[in-house]
């Protein structure tokens, strides 16, 4: 029985954001945009979806009079990512067999 792939994570940009955040404590929005090559508008929408799902925490603050957005993965996000990778492994394993 295959586990269903989490629809929140099974999107290229959202998966890229989660994969980027999984190995680090926190990252600025500009860093994520640079690494994913996404547009600011599209990234904002996807970040908001991840936030609404409780997978990431978004902190908006001011740094030297400039707005700064910091994203960090939540324990729920970690769990969801782990489940997603496990499900992915199942699919890939089945593909090999």
């Amino acid at each position: 029985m295959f586990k269903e792939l989490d629809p929140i994570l099974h999107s290229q940009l959202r998966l890229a954001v989660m994969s980027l955040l999984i190995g680090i404590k926190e990252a600025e929005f500009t860093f994520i945009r640079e690494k994913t090559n996404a547009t600011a508008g599209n990234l904002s929408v996807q970040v908001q979806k991840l936030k609404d799902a409780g997978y990431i925490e978004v902190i908006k603050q001011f740094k030297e009079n400039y707005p700064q957005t910091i994203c960090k993965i939540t324990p729920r996000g970690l769990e969801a990512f782990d489940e997603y990778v496990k499900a992915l492994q199942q699919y890939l394993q089945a593909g090999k067999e």
Partner: protein
Amino acid sequence: MPNEKSFTEKESLDIITSMIQKAKGSYHETGIGSILWGSVIAFNSFVTYLEIRYDFYIGFDVWILALAAIIPQIFISINEKRKGRIKKYEDDALDTVWLVFGISIFALSAYRIIVGGATQSLIKEEGWVMMKHYLDGRRPDEPMQPFVPSFYSIYLILYSFPTLVTGIVKKFRPMLYGALISYGLFIFSCFTSTQNDMLLGTFTAISCWLIPGIVLRRKYLAQKKAANV
């Protein structure tokens, strides 16, 4: 990066791998701190070596420069924190390791300065003194101040410690190899005089900090250049 386009499990795996690699390969340290300390400690050790070797004094304690280097280091740290766009899990732990290293170096320096005179006073109270006795009798016996032989070896082992931790945790080979070379130099220094220990200290600072700092700086600048293209 496209968003909602359907994609295969293999593509999912590729995205995950590529993004994890991008995050891992992101250098947020500029390398300047490492270059600063590598240069200062290498220079100080080498000048001290020359002073002992050729029996002269430059007019002030060259190690004052190590104290002075704290000021630019504070600015470097503040600047790196300000410019840093990511924070890795290990960052706080490594910052603490280097802070404790700094405290330990100053504690060790205080020990070196204080303990000789203090021990001399204590043994004087007990009514005896340490004497230097020449086996061939070429000079008369003379009193001497207690000291820890080959003391700089302890500094070498201390220099290696945070460097090795950083090299292992960050999987940064130049620092890992630098620390291992430094441990080798420490073992070697156990058999050499203080004069030569100073020369080994120069090599330690170069291998632990200066070379890794230059490598880090080049990677940081290459990354910065790529981001601006």
